[in-house]
């Protein structure tokens, strides 16, 4: 991908995010009716974190679908959803976080609200929480803690996911009296999490993506092997450090262009005074670049 195309992607990122959020939740009339789309689209997973129970949702949430299969009595692991996640990870990696995920977009919009902004540079160890969330709440607990029929709860959806409250519980309960009557303590708990993420997003950049998101964790692991990569041209780079300073995910792109935390937002591309950074799609072209991974 040449530099012009990289700049084009970065410039229209906001629009792409809005479009992706709309496409992911295309069944808009359902918001008014308080019903769910239950057609064949739900057999497929959307790339971003987007609740199955959102009235507008066009597909299933990969994390939700994974837990549903793992938690069922028939299966202990979901090869189908894992396959989709690996595929998406190889094709796009955390580009999905930066460009396609509705919940990431929401956090970014919230971050635009004027307020004192806090750096997350010192909070880097918290990044590892999301891998624990993935391993424990998404993979292990639904398969291990089961009832007599061998069925487990979707622990992440049930106890942690703020997107489920925002997209599922809130819009459904507004229009559906039966759902409203069913709201209980779990709703209050997750509403508090949502509130914390919302407030947190105003002062921190994408706190949920950085520290908690199990889907982000999957794509982070795939970032190294993704076809979608960052390229730093060593010949033109003047090592000024502007890119590292501009990076909202606390990555030094010149040292680790395919760092697990890089969501391909392109702020480094924009900040580079010599235009040394661009996106690259494919198997890497080492004649021009030296990709060093630590």
């Amino acid at each position, binding site marked *: 991908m040449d530099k012009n195309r990289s700049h084009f992607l970065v410039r229209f990122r906001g629009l792409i995010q809005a479009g992706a959020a709309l496409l992911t939740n295309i069944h808009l009339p359902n918001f008014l009716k308080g019903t769910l789309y*239950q057609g064949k689209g739900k057999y497929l997973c959307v790339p971003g974190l987007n609740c199955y129970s959102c009235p507008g949702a066009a597909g299933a949430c990969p994390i939700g679908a994974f837990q549903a299969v793992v938690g069922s009595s028939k299966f202990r692991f979901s090869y189908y959803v894992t396959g989709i996640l690996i*595929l998406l990870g*190889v094709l796009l990696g955390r580009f999905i976080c930066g460009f396609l995920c509705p919940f990431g977009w929401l956090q970014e919009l919230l971050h635009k609200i004027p307020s004192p902004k806090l750096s997350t540079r010192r909070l880097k160890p918290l990044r590892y929480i999301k891998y624990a969330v993935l391993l424990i709440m998404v993979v292990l607990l639904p398969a291990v803690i089961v009832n007599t029929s061998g069925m487990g709860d979707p622990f992440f959806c049930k106890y942690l996911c703020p997107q489920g409250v925002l997209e599922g519980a809130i819009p459904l309960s507004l229009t*559906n009296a*039966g759902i409203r*009557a*069913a709201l209980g303590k779990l709703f209050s708990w997750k509403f508090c999490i949502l509130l914390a993420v919302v407030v947190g997003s105003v002062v921190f950049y994408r706190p949920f993506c950085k520290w908690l998101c199990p889907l982000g964790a999957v794509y982070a692991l795939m970032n190294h092997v993704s076809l979608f990569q960052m390229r730093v041209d060593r010949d033109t780079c003047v090592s000024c450090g502007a890119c590292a300073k501009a990076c909202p995910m606390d990555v030094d792109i010149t040292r680790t262009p395919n760092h697990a935390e890089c969501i391909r937002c392109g702020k480094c591309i924009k900040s580079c005074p010599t235009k040394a950074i661009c996106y690259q799609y494919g198997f890497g*072209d080492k004649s021009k670049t030296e990709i060093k991974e630590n």
Partner: protein
Amino acid sequence: MKRFFAWITALLMLLSLAACSSTQTSTAAASQQASTSETGKSENELIAEENDILAANNTLWEKVFASMDKNVTDTTLSSNYGDILMNALDHAKDQFTDEEYAALKADADKIREIETQIAALPQDEAASQSMTQTASTFPQFEGKDLDGNSVSSSLFADNAFTVVNFWFSGCKPCVDEMDDLNALNQRIQEQGGEVIGINTETLDGNADNIAAAKQILEQAGAAFRNIYFDSASDAGKFALGIMAFPTTCVVDRQGNIVGEPIMGGIDKEDNAATLQKLIDEALAQSQQ
């Protein structure tokens, strides 16, 4: 060249998805297709056609309408509008030439045909609405229990009240409340009540799903009746329109749903209390 191969690989991987998607069925909740009307045209389109026919001979029809009996009775409301027009036309026959009369008669015939089509349209909307919005009558059904014995909506009349529980086999909260439902079934027997389970995956008598449902019921020691019917029937559409599981409702002897259906397991305290309130209400009604 490498980039070219990368794109080809990417494309191939995407295409491979198409192969998976059609066979895989084990995602999240039970995904059900919304039923669609089998007739090509909607009611609104047919009514628009009628209006066009009348508009074509507007001045003549005005004369007919002017001579019509303005007393609307039950019979005029329930009979075919084409017949009504034909009647009125015969009364006002002498106001028209033979040619005009023939044209109007042809129009009335067409309208009668369209009316029959409208009457034959499935009453989808009422049945497919979610439970909370529908009127209070439980839709009619003819079906079987999981052991193959015939059942129908007349079973409501045999009980003082019936607790109907909608569930599916992959739903953990549903399975978790089975023993409570069984206990409830035993407790309400002396009051003339009964718990009926409807597993939405067993609709249309799917043998594999019936076996799975039976296994779950057996494991939970649940002995209450579970039934199924055609998914295309009114009750079937009603069951498939439910989007939160488990959903439990109370039906009185007359077949009316009492109050609002309860979403969520009745093993939760407040849901159990709500259910008891609905049962008391149903008992009071059946004793009247």
